[in-house]
């Protein structure tokens, strides 16, 4: 193709990517208090009831908190990653069309989609790392809790957040604004309850059908992986298996999420 007389050099993709990320982080910073309340309040309430009140009433045996804490972190992560990607997109594509100024950026559309996922990962990490110390504070001493494997915790957080942000991208571009309530009750709520967040996967041996059915739920691998990294003494899946599952699920959601975004962005 003949050059068109516009002498401007092409803008580097990484530079545009960082500008897009900078925008999302600026907005996240402005909304940080609301963001934390929205994504961590529900897990905190769980901590208070199941990690503080019930153990003191004598309903829970000693090391239940060691099972619950990693699960609660997984739940915060899920909530934060899905919401921070899906909610603005549902609004942008369905109603305000605000995202158009970014869709005009001189980069391939899938890079704009990928940026949304990365921004979601960062917000998921912030949420999980915010809940961890507070949960520990409310629950009191947790038998077997260790931060010796913190890099592993971080790896699981990143992989889990990437999988859920990609799912957020898929949901955010596939769902109409009026169905957003449905997204929470039909997709997210069952995922949280059947995600082995509040009980260990090994415990489902009592209901073998459930034990296999829940394996399609990505939250299971985040919760179980977290147990392996934070409270290795409680029963948990082998950590390498949880990592492998998160990579596979993450890639599937990534693929379909970005494809859905592209379809929605280009008419």
């Amino acid at each position, binding site marked *: *193709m*003949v*050059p*068109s*007389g*516009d002498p*401007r050099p*092409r*803008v*580097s993709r990484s*530079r*545009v990517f960082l*500008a*897009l990320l*900078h*925008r999302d982080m*600026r*907005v996240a910073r*402005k*909304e940080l208090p609301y963001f934390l309340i929205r994504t961590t309040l529900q897990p905190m309430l769980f901590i208070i009831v199941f990690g503080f009140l019930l153990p003191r009433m004598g309903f829970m045996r000693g090391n239940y908190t060691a099972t619950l804490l990693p699960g609660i972190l997984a739940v915060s992560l899920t909530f934060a990653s899905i919401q921070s990607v899906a909610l603005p997109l549902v609004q942008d594509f369905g109603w*305000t*069309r*605000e995202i*158009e*100024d*970014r*869709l*005009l*950026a*001189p*980069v*391939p559309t899938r890079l704009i989609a990928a940026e949304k996922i990365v921004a979601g990962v960062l917000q998921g990490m912030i949420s999980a790392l915010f809940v961890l110390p507070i949960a520990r504070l409310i629950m009191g001493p947790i038998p077997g809790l260790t931060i010796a494997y913190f890099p592993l915790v971080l790896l699981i957080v990143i992989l889990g957040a990437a999988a859920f942000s990609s799912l957020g991208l898929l949901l955010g571009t596939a769902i109409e604004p009026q169905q957003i309530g449905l997204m929470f009750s039909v997709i997210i709520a069952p995922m949280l309850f059947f995600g082995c967040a509040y009980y260990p996967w090994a415990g489902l041996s009592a209901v073998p059908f459930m034990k296999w059915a829940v394996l399609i739920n990505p939250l299971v691998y985040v919760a179980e992986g977290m147990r392996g990294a934070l409270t290795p003494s409680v029963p948990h899946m082998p950590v390498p298996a949880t990592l492998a599952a998160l990579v596979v699920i993450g890639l599937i959601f990534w693929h379909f999420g970005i494809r859905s975004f592209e379809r929605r*962005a*280009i*008419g």
Partner: protein
Amino acid sequence: MTAPAIATEKLRKVYPAPNGGGEIVALEGLDLEIGAGEFFGLLGPNGAGKSTTIGILTTRILPSGGRACVAGEDVVSRAVAVRQRIGVVPQRPNPDRSLDAMENLVFHAAYFGVPRSEAARRANALLETLNIADKARAKVDELSGGQQQRLMIARALIHEPAVIFLDEPTVGLDPQARLALWDILRELHAAGRTIVMTTHYMEEADQLCDRLGIVDRGKLLALDTPAALKERAPGGTLVTLTLDGDAAVTSDAARTVAGVERVEAEGAKLRAYTQRGGEIIPALIKAAESAQRAVKQIQLREPSLETLFISLTGRTLD
């Protein structure tokens, strides 16, 4: 002769019909060539295919057939290069509501690789020019419709694009804001920008554009300068007489007046089309008087785009 800023060839877009039945043709074989520095208008009623055309040229809609180039780059295979060279003002203001006015501009510039300090300098200059400098730190929700539209124009200009697209930029603006926007567009044109605007307002197209394409139902019906298009309007000048009673009784007499090509009567109004301009007025008054009607008011209209549009499509613009 420089390369055209925009060229389309047999451009076509079909959408699947809702409810599954067949397809809707939004654009049917559009051939266009728009020169660099030209102010080009696409005029047509709602649903004519104007926004689809803009959508394809701005890489937001994929064509179903044919091809289109903007600034020498193909809109499909070289979409990223096209985006680098265009600025877009949307039909409905869609500022980033999570950011203030200034941030809207600086971030948009950043998406195009403009360094921060340079972006801030340009943003200040644009806000000043567009008369919204006092709103730089305001949330965009605090801006009026007209101010938001001006912010959209600033956003479309901040990365200094070669071609600017405006999709119905004055819809929803009050008359004063509309005139202010016209002035801004005239200045941009004078500064040598290529501008492509869609509108369904005749007057706007007539006042601003170098050339106009009249589109309806996905087809380009006419393409020329506003003056040349108006000359093609049927019957030339329109003379309207307002009478003191029903005008129908005067139409037969009016038809016999030399130079009158067509006569329409509606209520108390008698409309006569002629190539002879005001010359026929005395004879028309006599014709009315011969039918026992007195003339209360006379109005003369130059050949207009509206009359041309009606003759091309059989319907009015709105």
